[in-house]
């Protein structure tokens, strides 16, 4: 835990609304929120409360209507499309509910994907990929395709892909939502290890109270507003 350290994520007056035809539906209203470096934060709340939207905004895959989001001193709301893509590639690791692996690529190739956008040569990329596959315990499955892996193993590959570029933050949207209890527990332990052993900052959206228990801080979103647990 790093409760008193400088925040890596600083959110101020963040608002976001969706438009359906002429109707404006507010999702987030005046959110103020800091996340310290090395923290494991869980965002909880009922469906439609805006937790995934908040996660997407922090990760730079959606744009805010108003407010500021600073991640490691980078004001991401002012970045253009291209700069945002470059920032995401280097600063954010993504873990999705359905793993989002590319089915025609092997575990190794899936993990290698983010490194293709760096200046690393082939040998360096191989070293990085093998190292993170070792961390998630799948070094012996690197030539397997996603369809040849269990759900838990696929999520571990996705985690390896998320950490291979050594990003500032990891964002996880319901990372255990598609897994059985045993696999979910493995994934949560792995995420906890990333925080404890590697000092990663993890922001996780979840419906599952057991998953949220692993986090240092749980934040509840209700009708677009945050509360602290």
């Amino acid at each position, binding site marked *: 835990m790093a409760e008193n350290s400088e925040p890596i994520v600083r959110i101020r007056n963040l608002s976001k609304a969706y438009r359906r035809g002429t109707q404006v539906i507010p999702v987030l209203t005046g959110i103020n929120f800091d996340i310290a470096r090395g923290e494991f934060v869980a965002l909880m709340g009922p469906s439609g409360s805006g937790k995934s939207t908040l996660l997407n905004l922090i990760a730079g895959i959606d744009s805010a209507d108003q407010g500021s989001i600073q991640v490691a001193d980078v004001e991401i709301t002012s970045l253009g499309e*291209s700069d945002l893509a470059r920032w995401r590639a280097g600063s954010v690791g993504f873990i999705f509910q359905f793993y989002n692996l590319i089915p025609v690529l092997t575990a190794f190739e899936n993990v290698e994907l983010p490194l293709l956008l760096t200046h690393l040569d082939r040998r360096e990329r191989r070293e990085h990929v093998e190292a993170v596959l070792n961390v998630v315990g799948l070094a012996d499955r690197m030539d397997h395709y996603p369809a040849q892996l269990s759900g838990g193993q696929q999520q571990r590959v996705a985690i390896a892909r998320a950490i291979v570029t050594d990003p500032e933050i990891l964002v996880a949207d319901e990372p255990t939502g598609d897994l059985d209890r045993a696999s979910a527990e493995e994934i949560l332990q792995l995420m906890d290890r990333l925080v404890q052993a590697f000092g990663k900052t993890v922001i996780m959206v979840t419906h599952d109270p057991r998953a949220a228990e692993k986090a240092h801080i749980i934040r509840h979103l209700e009708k677009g507003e945050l509360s602290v647990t």
Partner: protein
Amino acid sequence: MFLLKYILRNLFRHRLRSVLTVVGIAVAVLAFGLLRTLVGLWYSGAEHASDTRLVTRNSISLVFPLPISYLERIRGVPGVTTVSYGSWFGAYYKEPKNFFANYAIEPKGYMELYPEFTLSPQEKNDFLLDRKGCIVGQRLAKTYGWKVGDLITLKGTIYPGQWEFVLRGIYHGREKATEERILLFHWDYLNEAMRQTVPRRADQVGYFIVGVKKPELASEVALAIDSLFKNSLAETLTETEKAFHMGFVSMTEAIMIAIQIVSYMVIAIIMVVAANTMAMTARERIGEYATLKTLGFKGWHLAGLIFGESVIISFLGGLLGVAATFPAASWIETELAQFFPYFSVSGETLLLELLAALSVGVVSGIFPTWRGATIRIADGLKRIG
């Protein structure tokens, strides 16, 4: 390199769909090539016509004859080297379906004027000496299994009755475009029979073939010939062999234009089908594209993926279509020889086939590429699960 690997693996993701798309494009490209070749062949007779040969016929219509007495007057026109003549005979062999071109001709002048019909000296001599003799092109001889010395009986239509000929020679075309499905026999043989059976049809020819010294004299000689017979009972129309052929071709020009339109329509249809397939493929993979964008890949990376796949599928279809063109052309040349003296696909047509396939790939890839490259990440990710 990664993009190429990814594209190639995507190609085999839905094997049946990819194979059907490739085959569809191949068939369209093949049809385009064959139809284009067909149109080209239709005009090839005119294109290969000699520019030192003129055709003199009745100015009213080709079906009206000219008196043989015109021969010497035409021969006397300055610039004329050789004159021969002939009549369309229009008979068939055994059954009406065995129809081919057959003409009654004056053989000596004809052989001089048509050096592209090559015969051995022996065969040529035998033909010239035998009034009942005939010669045929090697394709025609091959079709009916005729050999030199065979007795061939044709059933007349314009000139009724059974007509017997002795095959004295089998000519070979000097060029590929030379028609080798013709039977030629002595006009004298026909005229003699007419004198005996229908005297009013005797001493008449369908046309004169006039050789001129050089191409530049063609129009001058044509005018001179026609002026000779102005205000006579059978006025003439003299034109170059090319113009004469084009007269026939122009009668069917509307059909040829229709065939050309069909060839382009075939490509347009496959373009729409391929575009639909690519749009379907891109729609299915929109979640993957959103994931790639999330990881930091940019629109142009995705454009390369989708566009590359579209172009590679179309190019494979094009290659298959081009490869299939050769056996298809060979089959047409063999099986439909009565319609096409030869059926060779030009290099230009093969190139156009490939270009057509590529254009299918480019056009069908535009919309899916735009859609995939501009997808909002959050929207794309919602499609997963």
